């Protein structure tokens, strides 16, 4: 299990233990973390698990894929550190990582 801290736009924090290898969208949806919907089921085909990765964690979360980049680019709330949580698999190196959410997503 990897401890991930999902931080809502209003600052509310949700600590969740995500099994290693599971994607961080699933980790949120299965634990009813508000603000992450995961409408496409993890295909980087919507942007309802949009999140921001703090700079100190970017080395372990990797880069956007082409498809992921296309979806993020269409979001009003896109930032350079935007990712789709479904495209990040939990690993031991992410223990204690914070993942921030935009105010809304669609």
């Amino acid at each position, binding site marked *: 299990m990897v401890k991930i801290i999902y931080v809502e736009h209003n600052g509310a924090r949700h600590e969740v233990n995500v099994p290693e290898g599971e994607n961080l969208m699933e980790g949120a949806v299965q634990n009813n973390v508000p603000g992450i919907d995961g*409408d496409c089921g993890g*295909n980087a085909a919507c942007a309802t698990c949009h999140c921001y990765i703090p700079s100190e964690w970017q080395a372990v979360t990797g880069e956007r894929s082409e*498809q992921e980049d296309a979806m993020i680019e269409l979001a009003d709330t896109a930032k350079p550190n935007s990712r789709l949580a479904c495209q990040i698999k939990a690993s031991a190196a992410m223990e204690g990582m914070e993942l921030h959410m935009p105010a809304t997503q669609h």
Partner: protein
Amino acid sequence: MATQLQDTRITQSLPQGSVAWPLPPRTRPDLPNHDPATLEQYLRSAPLEEVDIADPLWWETDTNHVYFKRLRDEAPVFFTSQNSNRHRGFWNVTRWNDVMAVDTNHQVFSSEATLGGITLFDMDPDFIMPMFIAMDPPKHDVQRKAVNPIVSGQNLAGYESLIRERTQEVLDGLPRGEVFDWVDRVSIELTSRMLATLFGWPQERRRMLTYWSDISTSDPELPGNPGKEERQGILLGMLQEFTMLWNERVNAEPTGDLVSMLAHNPATRNMPPMEFMGNLVLLIVGGNDTTRNSISGGLYFLNKNPAEYDKLRANPALVENMVSEIIRYQTPLAHMRRTALQDTVLGGQLIHKGDKVVMWYVSANRDERVLDRPEEFIIDRPRARQHMSFGFGIHRCVGNRLAELQLKILWEEILKRFDKIEVVEEPERVPSAFVRGYKKMLVRIPA
């Protein structure tokens, strides 16, 4: 200096008709009658290649699902050549995973209007309406982003109380103990009011938006519908009216409505008239037909599934989940179409460059391979949000959150007022393989 759009009736003559028009007559199965039972029986055993599922017959009778079940099981990526002299033939993509593969591969599967666009029947080559849903990147992206803010979460929060007040007003005005048409009194009424607000269009003329939406998607071949040239004339009339609004707003301060947003955004302010018209059609149909039919469909499904209606009354907190289930079960747009830009393999089938590829959302939303009991309407279905109705990938519905909000508020307000709304006879359906909806649905609220 901002661009003033010209009056297109003066600058653009009506097209002179195209080579393909009128379309040749379609072949239909030789059946004693066209009641749903006969049609379903036929679809259960007909050779797959004999069926042209684009025929409105299968849609006004709501019998198409029998054929799609067979395609999913027997031939999930299947080429229809029946009646290909009318539509050039098309690939049917019917399983969830294959639809997802097409929808997320815009590099291979194009939406471009000049290749035919995003519906099964090609856009008229002599009346091409560019619109961002029928564009590929990069132009698609910048135009979509020009209108995206109107349906952002922040903006929607501002609309919520307005939507609720209007919903209350419409529901409070409904008669008790008498039969009326739910489509007209509620579904169209609510969506046209919303649409008028989004466009900054005069509320008292809101039904014009409904009219134009219906004309945009109407089949010129069907009796009672305007023919091709008449339809084009009506749409040019729409353009003329909206051009006046554009010209008022283009040099004024931004007002936050769609016309103003298009007029002020660098990506859209210099659109040629046909492109302005195309984007109007997109936004009007997108905001009108779809939510309208989910409003009607939801009530119909609850009537067909009384145990679900009971469940809802017992627990109004289920509304939000039910809204997603309604949208899945209705699938207000039955398909989206793409054109292959190169040879490619999908579901084991070789698709050639230039082929028409039809993603049947209505079938993917019933795919037993990814959904549990997909044929059933279950308002507390787990993960109801995972449906295909909004599409996926870069063309995913931009107004999905607004649609959900409108439906959520409607059902919250219905539950506060009425114990039961009864559908008194089978609804009349739209005869279209694209807009899956209802023309008329008679209901009664017990006195």
